[in-house]
C-alpha cells in the first residue's frame, strides 16, 4: 500500500513501492490521503500519480483516508504487509510525520517504508482562477442583500446575529460560485459590516478593538467554508464522473452482450466507443499466431501498427499519456485474454485532448478488459463450433466408412460366391442356371461401378475440386442427352416432358448428371409403368425444373433428409442404391448457386424441384446468309 497526498509529486515513492512489490511478488495499491484544504494543483498531482500507479501495474483505490486510524483499518481489511510513504525533503511534512508516529506507536503488523525524496521544481504554477464578472456581481448582490436584511433587523438583534446573516451569504456563494468568489464575498461582507454597523457607523474606522476579532473570525470562517464547499463540489464532480463511468460500462456491457462472432463484436464496439468517447477508436484483433489481424491494421500507419504490435506482445499500454512510446499518435491499450492476447484497443484523442487523463484512462483499461472478455468468449464459442463440426465430420466419416464397406462388400460377396460356384468342378449346371449366375455377376458389378462412381463424384464435389463451368445450353439438349443415355431404363416407362424452348446457363456435364440421378431416383422409387413428369419453366431471373413420380413419396418431415448422404428412405432396403445420388444433386445445384427441394404431392408421389439463377442472356450469333 502506498500513500499519496498530492503535496508534491509522489512518483519516486510510487516507483519504490512498485519495486518492493515486484521483489516480494505481491500486488500493490495506492490510496489518497485527503487534503485538509482543497487545491486544484494537488488534485492534478494525485491524478498524475494514480496514472503512474496504473501504468506500473498497481491498483488505485478511489477512497480518501484522513488519519492513522483509517489507514490501520484499511490495512487490516486488505491485509497489507508493507506501507510505503514519502518524506518530502525540504518540507516539514508535519502531517505525514504525525501519521507515521501514530502508526509506529500503535504497531500494526506491517512494515513501514519511508522514502525520502527531493522536491522537484513545480512544473507549472496554476493560479487560482479569478472569479468571473457574473460571480462578482452575485457576490456583491448577496452582500447587499445581507446588509439590507441586517439594516431591517439591527434594532432587535446583537452584532453576532448580524454576522451570522453575512456568514449565511458567504456559505451560499461558496456552494454556488466557488472558492475565490466566496473569499471576495467574505472581504465584502467584512467591509459592509464595518461600514454599516460598527460604530462609528458609515466610516471604515473601528473604535472598539474587539471588533477586529469579529472581522478575523468572519474572514476565517469564510475561508474554511470556501474550502469545504470547494471540496464538496470536487467530490460531487468525482461522484458524477464515477457514475458516468459506471453507466458507460453498463452500456458497453449491453453492447457486448449482444454476442455474435468476433468480427460482429469488433464492429459494434468500435461504433459504440467512437460515439461514447468522441474520438477515433480501432479494435485490433490478434490472430492465432500472436500477430495483429491484417484486416484491422489496414487503417493504421506503419508506425502505429508497430506500436500496436508492441502492445500486443508486451501486454502493456503504450502511446500518448503513458510511459512507453509516449510519442506515438494515440493511446494503445492491450486486451489481454486468459490464454493469449485478444488484441489491442487503439484510441486517437483529437488534438485538443493531448493526453487521456488518469480517470479516463483507468476507465478505458476497464473497457479494454471487458471487451477482451467478450472477444475471448466469442473466440471460444467459435472454437467450440469448429470442434463440433469436426466431431460431426468424424461421425460422418465413420458412417460413410461403415456404409461404404457394407455397400462394397455386398456385391463383391455375390460375385465371389457366384464365380466360385461356376468354377467348382461339380456337376455342371444347366444352361439356364449358368446364364442366371452370370447375369448376377454382371448386375453386381454394375452396382459396384455405380457406387464407386457416386462416391468419387461426391468426394470431388465436397472437396471443392469441381469447378462449375456455366455455358448457355438449350434445355432440350440437356434433357435429350440424358434421356438417350438412359434409354434402356426408360423403355417401358412413360416420361412426359413439358419443356419450354429456352437456353439456360449451366455446366452441361454436371447438370446432366443431376437430371440422370433425379430420373433414376424417380424410376426406382415408383412402380413399373408409372409415368414420370418432367417440367421446366424459365423466366428472366431463374429457371425451375421439377420431376414428379407417382410413387409412395417420403414420410412427412423427412423431405429434406432425402438430400443427406446415405439417406435411404423407408423402402431403402428393398431398392438398390447407395443413398448418394440426391446428395450429389444437391452438391451440384448448390455449386451452381441454386436450390433443390423435395415435396410430397397431394395426389401421391414425390416431386423434386430445383431452381437455378439466370444471369445475363445467351450471346447473339452473327446472322448467317443463305447461299
Amino acid at each position, binding site marked *: 500500500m502506498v500513500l499519496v497526498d498530492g503535496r508534491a509529486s509522489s512518483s519516486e515513492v510510487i516507483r519504490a513501492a512498485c519495486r518492493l512489490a515486484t521483489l516480494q511478488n505481491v500486488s500493490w495499491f495506492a490510496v489518497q490521503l485527503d487534503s485538509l484544504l482543497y487545491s486544484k494543483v494537488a488534485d492534478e498531482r494525485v491524478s498524475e500519480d494514480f496514472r503512474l500507479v496504473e501504468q506500473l501495474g498497481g491498483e488505485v483505490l478511489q477512497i480518501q483516508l484522513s488519519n492513522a486510524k483509517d489507514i490501520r483499518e484499511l490495512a487490516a481489511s486488505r491485509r497489507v504487509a508493507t506501507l510505503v510513504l514519502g518524506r518530502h525533503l525540504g518540507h516539514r511534512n508535519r502531517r505525514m510525520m504525525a501519521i507515521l508516529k501514530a502508526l509506529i506507536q500503535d504497531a500494526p503488523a506491517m512494515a513501514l517504508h519511508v522514502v525520502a525524496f527531493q522536491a522537484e521544481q513545480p512544473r507549472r504554477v496554476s493560479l487560482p482562477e479569478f472569479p468571473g464578472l457574473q460571480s462578482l456581481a452575485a457576490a456583491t448582490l448577496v452582500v447587499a442583500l445581507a446588509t439590507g436584511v441586517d439594516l431591517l433587523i439591527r434594532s432587535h438583534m446583537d452584532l453576532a446575529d448580524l454576522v451570522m446573516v453575512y456568514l449565511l451569504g458567504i456559505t451560499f456563494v461558496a456552494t454556488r460560485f466557488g472558492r475565490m468568489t466566496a473569499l471576495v464575498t467574505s472581504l465584502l461582507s467584512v467591509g459592509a459590516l464595518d461600514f454599516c454597523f460598527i460604530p462609528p457607523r458609515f466610516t471604515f474606522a473601528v473604535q472598539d478593538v474587539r471588533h477586529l476579532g469579529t472581522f478575523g473570525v468572519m474572514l476565517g470562517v469564510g475561508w474554511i467554508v470556501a474550502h469545504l464547499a470547494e471540496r464538496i463540489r470536487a467530490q460531487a464532480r468525482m461522484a458524477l464522473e464515477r457514475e458516468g463511468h459506471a453507466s458507460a460500462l453498463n452500456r458497453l456491457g449491453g453492447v457486448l452482450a449482444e454476442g455474435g462472432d468476433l468480427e460482429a463484436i469488433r464492429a459494434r464496439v468500435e461504433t459504440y466507443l467512437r460515439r461514447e468517447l468522441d474520438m477515433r477508436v480501432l479494435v485490433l484483433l490478434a490472430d492465432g499466431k500472436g500477430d495483429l489481424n491484417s484486416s484491422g491494421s489496414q487503417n493504421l500507419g506503419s508506425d502505429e501498427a508497430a506500436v500496436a504490435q508492441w502492445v500486443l506482445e508486451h501486454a502493456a499500454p503504450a502511446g500518448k499519456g503513458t510511459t512507453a512510446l509516449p510519442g506515438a499518435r494515440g493511446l494503445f491499450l492491450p486486451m489481454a485474454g486468459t490464454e493469449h492476447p485478444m488484441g489491442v484497443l487503439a484510441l486517437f484523442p483529437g488534438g485538443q485532448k493531448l493526453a487521456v487523463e488518469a480517470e479516463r484512462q483507468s476507465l478505458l483499461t476497464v473497457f479494454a478488459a471487458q471487451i477482451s472478455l467478450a472477444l475471448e468468449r466469442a473466440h471460444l464459442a467459435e472454437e467450440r463450433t469448429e470442434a463440433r463440426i469436426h466431431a460431426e465430420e468424424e461421425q460422418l466419416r465413420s458412417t460413410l466408412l461403415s456404409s461404404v464397406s457394407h455397400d462394397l462388400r455386398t456385391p463383391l460377396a455375390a460375385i465371389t460366391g457366384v464365380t466360385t460356384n461356376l468354377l467348382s468342378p461339380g456337376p455342371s449346371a444347366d444352361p439356364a442356371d449358368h446364364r442366371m449366375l452370370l447375369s448376377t455377376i454382371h448386375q453386381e458389378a454394375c452396382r459396384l461401378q455405380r457406387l464407386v462412381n457416386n462416391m468419387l463424384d461426391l468426394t470431388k464435389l465436397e472437396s471443392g475440386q469441381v469447378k462449375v463451368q456455366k455455358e448457355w445450353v438449350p434445355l432440350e439438349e440437356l434433357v435429350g*442427352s440424358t434421356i438417350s443415355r438412359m434409354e434402356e431404363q426408360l423403355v417401358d416407362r412413360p416420361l412426359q416432358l413439358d419443356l419450354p424452348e429456352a437456353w439456360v446457363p449451366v455446366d*452441361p*456435364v454436371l447438370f446432366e448428371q443431376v437430371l440422370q440421378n433425379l430420373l433414376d431416383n424417380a424410376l426406382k422409387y415408383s412402380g413399373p409403368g408409372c409415368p414420370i413428369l418432367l417440367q421446366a419453366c424459365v423466366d428472366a431471373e431463374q429457371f425451375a425444373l421439377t420431376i414428379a413420380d407417382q410413387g409412395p413419396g417420403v414420410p412427412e418431415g423427412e423431405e429434406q433428409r432425402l438430400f443427406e448422404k446415405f439417406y435411404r428412405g423407408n423402402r431403402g432396403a428393398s431398392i438398390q442404391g447407395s443413398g448418394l445420388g440426391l446428395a450429389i444433386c444437391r452438391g451440384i445445384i448448390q455449386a451452381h448457386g441454386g436450390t433443390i427441394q423435395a415435396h410430397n404431392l397431394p395426389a401421391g408421389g414425390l416431386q423434386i424441384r430445383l431452381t437455378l439463377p439466370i444471369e445475363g442472356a445467351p450471346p447473339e450469333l452473327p446472322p448467317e446468309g443463305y*447461299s
Partner: protein
Amino acid sequence: MSLANPLVLVIEDELPMRRYLRSTLQSHGYKVEEAITVEEGREQARRLSPDIVLLDLGLPDGDGLDLARELRAWSQVPIIIVSARGREEDKVIALDFGADDYLSKPFGSAELLARIRVALRHTAAVAGAVTDSVVQIGALRVDLSSREVSLGDAVVHLSPNEYALLVALVQHAGKVLTHRQLLKEVWGTAVGPQPHYLRVYMASLRKKLEADPARPRLLLTEPGVGYRLKA
C-alpha cells in the same frame, strides 16, 4: 489390310483386361496382338501395321496419349482409347490428339465391338477414297454432290452452316466429334467460334431432322465432349 480378320493391337498393362479383350475379340473373328508398354506398343505398331489399336492411357513407361499422337503422325490406323480416366476433359484431349474413339472402363463387349466396327468402317471409307455421294442413315438421306438433304420423302432445307455441320457428322457417322473438331470442320478454325455456335446450329438441325428434339434418335450429344451421329 485383311478385312476378313482385322488385326487388333492391344496396348494394355493389366493382365485381366488383356485376357478379356483377347477372348472377346478372338471369338468375334479378330486377330489379336498384345503390347504392355509404350515402347513395346510403338515397336509392334511399326512391325505389324495393325488394322486398329486399342490403347490404354496409364502405361508403366509413359502416357498412352503421347503414343497416340506419335502414331497419328505417321499412320492413319484407327486408335480407340481404353481408359479408366472417365473425365470429359480427358476424352476431349484424346480425341483432339487424333484418337478415333474413347471407351471408359468398365465397358461391355457389345459396346467395344460396335466402336471397333465404326472405326474400321470409317477407315475403309477413307481408304476407298471415293465415298458414295449419297449417304443414307435411317430415314435421313444426304446427297453430297447435289447438297440435298431429305427426310423420308420430304426435302429438308438447311442453312449453309447447318448443312456443313450435318456433313461433318455424316462423314464420321458413329464417331464422336469434339466441339473443336466440329468448329474446325464447319468454320475452318477452332479458335474464334465457341461451343455456343454449335449448340445453336445443332438445336436448329434437330428441329428440322428429329421427330422429337428432346428425344434425339439421330443427333446425339456426348456431354462435355461433342456430338455424334448415330450410325
